[in-house]
């Protein structure tokens, strides 16, 4: 008896520790980000850091304005959502409404498989296929542009959007559709006026998480965005998103110097952005569950 009780206690503790370890790591990361990132705010001022238009960290004297990097991230994220929303939501609608059972059984895993391709492979694809294509198409000095990054990131975020949107559509109770058909609505009306509104916040959750994935993606943008730390004028110019700046420069920034702290500060801001994205996604999806009466 005593042995069994000890065993149960041991299991309880092991799982408790495992469950709390992720919290521990999260807190640890946040502390490090704050500790290493905030010195740059003290040195040059928070607003000047965020809204400074020049990023010349290795000049003498250096400029640490990350507005071009923030805008770079913003541009490729907006561009990516223009790709992944129609692609992801469209394929979710197809899977849920039009595809037969067998097609869905086949297609959904295939689309989700897109998410398992390593980002460096996407980047490579962008580099060797999309880059020369864009260069020729628009007659550009370089094909490594915000547009290129947007296309590839959009493709990468599509499985996230599609998968979550399709789940949301399939959670819409069949009884809603039946009710709609029973009052003489046709398929299109049922879809646009009942099913999509009912699944709306679930679909939005997918979109937000897809965008969150796009803004945090590093390897791909490092390879295809072009890397110019200037405020972009059009999608056909190279950009340097925040993630790419961190990845490219961390190796050459002297530890403990201003550049080093600036990179941590960028990471901190990036973290806050994705954090907000995820919180919004969580709130929206909770509202969705309540709306459908699934639970709180």
């Amino acid at each position, binding site marked *: 008896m005593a042995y069994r009780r000890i065993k149960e206690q041991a299991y309880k503790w092991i799982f408790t520790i495992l469950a709390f370890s992720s919290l521990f790591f999260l807190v640890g990361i946040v502390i490090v980000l704050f500790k290493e990132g905030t010195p740059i705010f003290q040195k040059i001022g928070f607003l000047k850091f965020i809204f400074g238009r020049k990023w010349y960290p290795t000049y003498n004297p250096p400029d640490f304005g990350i507005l071009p990097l923030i805008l770079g991230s913003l541009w490729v994220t907006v561009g990516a959502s223009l790709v992944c929303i129609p692609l992801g939501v469209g394929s979710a609608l197809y899977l849920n409404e039009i595809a037969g059972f067998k097609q869905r059984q086949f297609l959904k895993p295939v689309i989700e498989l897109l998410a398992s391709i390593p980002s460096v492979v996407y980047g490579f694809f962008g580099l060797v296929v999309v880059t020369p294509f864009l260069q020729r198409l628009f007659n550009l000095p370089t094909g490594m542009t915000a547009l290129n990054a947007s296309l590839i990131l959009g493709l990468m975020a599509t499985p996230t959007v599609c998968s979550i949107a399709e789940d949301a559509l399939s959670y819409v109770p069949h009884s*809603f559709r039946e009710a709609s058909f029973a009052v003489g609505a046709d398929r299109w009306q049922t879809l646009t006026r*009942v099913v999509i509104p009912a699944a709306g916040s679930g679909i939005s959750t997918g979109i937000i998480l897809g965008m969150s994935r796009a803004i945090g993606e590093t390897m791909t943008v490092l390879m295809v965005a072009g890397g110019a730390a200037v405020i972009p004028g059009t999608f056909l110019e190279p950009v340097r998103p925040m993630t790419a700046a961190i990845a490219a420069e961390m190796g050459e920034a002297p530890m403990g110097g201003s550049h080093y702290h600036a990179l941590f500060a960028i990471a901190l801001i990036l973290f806050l952005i994705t954090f907000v994205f995820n919180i919004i996604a969580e709130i929206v999806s909770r509202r969705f569950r309540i709306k459908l009466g699934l639970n709180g």
Partner: protein
Amino acid sequence: MHNKIKMQAKDVDFFYGKNQALKNVNLDVYANRVTAMIGPSGCGKSTFIRLFNRMNELVPHTALCGKIFLDDLEINNPSVDPVDIRRRVGMVFQKPNPFPKSIFENISYGLKVNGIKDKAFIGQKVEDSLKRAVIWGEVKDRLHDSALKLSGGQQQRLCIARCLAVETEVILFDEPCASLDPISTAKIEELILELKKDYTIIIVTHNMQQAARVSDYTGFFLLGELVEFGKTQDMFTAPRNKKTEDYITGRFG
């Protein structure tokens, strides 16, 4: 039986894949009467009434042989648009299924999908339908609240109101009280008796007392066959078939 026949099933067989759910069913539904379908679970009675508004078509791998008529129209003819049928034959489901929209929108939905845009007309129609479904008094001050906040019984009356708004000729009730408490059930039954003045009603029920209370005609289904069909009064007092008698007296089911 000298009433006008509103709907009619002729030699109906129905299949789910290879399973035959209905076998050679013939039945007449009289205008402005309540026709009840009774029988044990899985006997095909729900499947049967879902043929009257072609709802079974939404289920894959099903097949129907035989004919269903609405007045003189053969509704299962491929040239007939099921949407047109459902605008004439409404349905109330077993589990109340209001849309996750406001009370007002739940009722106006049927009008809007049928192409009605006149706001004043819609507003009036919503009010009339809610009044006819005897729920107006309970919801008139909160028409723009979510319908999901209503109780189960209220939701079911809302669903009836939704059906009334489109001015169907026939209303199919598929075990409308299965998930309701006795008081809500009594309200729905009262409502059905009231509605038969203007509508033809078909109701599936598990509850034999309910069939006896509300219906004029009753059909007894067993294993996909219509065992007996006749005036409710006759069937409950002097069933012709031994199986009907056994079921009604509670010997099985």
